């Protein structure tokens, strides 16, 4: 997760971020907690790692068709185990 997406997630009034300065819909600067933003990024880092490691949908469907649901679940679980929630 990018820092900007964490800022949006934690600060609903933010509409635009220019550099590291956040603004609301009226263009007023919005102060945000940078430590909380970094913590949010760190806590969600596993999502991007898992997303990059999962097989494509086509490959997953192929696994289900040829090897069954249990084989598919094992394949997916291996990725989750490799990148656990922090």
């Amino acid at each position, binding site marked *: 997760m*990018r820092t900007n*997406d964490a800022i*949006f*997630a934690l600060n609903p009034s933010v*509409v*635009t*971020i220019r*550099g590291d300065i956040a603004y609301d819909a009226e263009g007023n600067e919005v102060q945000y907690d940078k430590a909380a933003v970094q913590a949010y990024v760190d806590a969600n880092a596993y999502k991007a790692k898992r*997303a990059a490691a999962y097989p494509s949908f086509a490959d997953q469907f192929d696994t289900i068709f040829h090897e069954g649901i249990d084989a598919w679940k094992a394949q997916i679980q291996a990725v989750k185990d490799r990148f656990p929630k922090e």
Partner: protein
Amino acid sequence: MPVSTIQNASLASGVPSAAKLPAGSVLQVVTGSTSTGVTTSGTTYIDTGLSATITPTSATSRILVLIGQNGISKGPGANGAGLKLQLLRNSTVLIKIQGYGGYTESSSYNWVGGVSSAYVDSPATTSATTYKTQFGNEQAVAASVTINNDASTSTITLLEIAA
């Protein structure tokens, strides 16, 4: 007339002035760039920070605008986000360069990369003229769009072309 017959004395200070150059000649080049990332979830167009200002030497000149808007991406959070991008001369919209950039029917990230465009303008002025880009989100959804992602550099080049 063969070039060898032109005498320096017939030219101002020995160098052809803009007025003496043939149509199609490049009279001046101006560039601009930015690598400041900007992200928005709003549908209102905002400045990307990419701009350049040129002062044409003649009101009949044309301006070739070359744009490389880089680091475009769509953020996560909701379906329906997509980047719209437009080119302006001062406050006048010239063209819409991009619509729904990065759009997917999912809420995940989409890294588009860059968008380039070329536009020939006839500003009909000898006053300082600013060309810039603006962007926004196509739809009011809880997802953002970004330019100059990860410090990518966007560039704009203006060439004044003799008429």
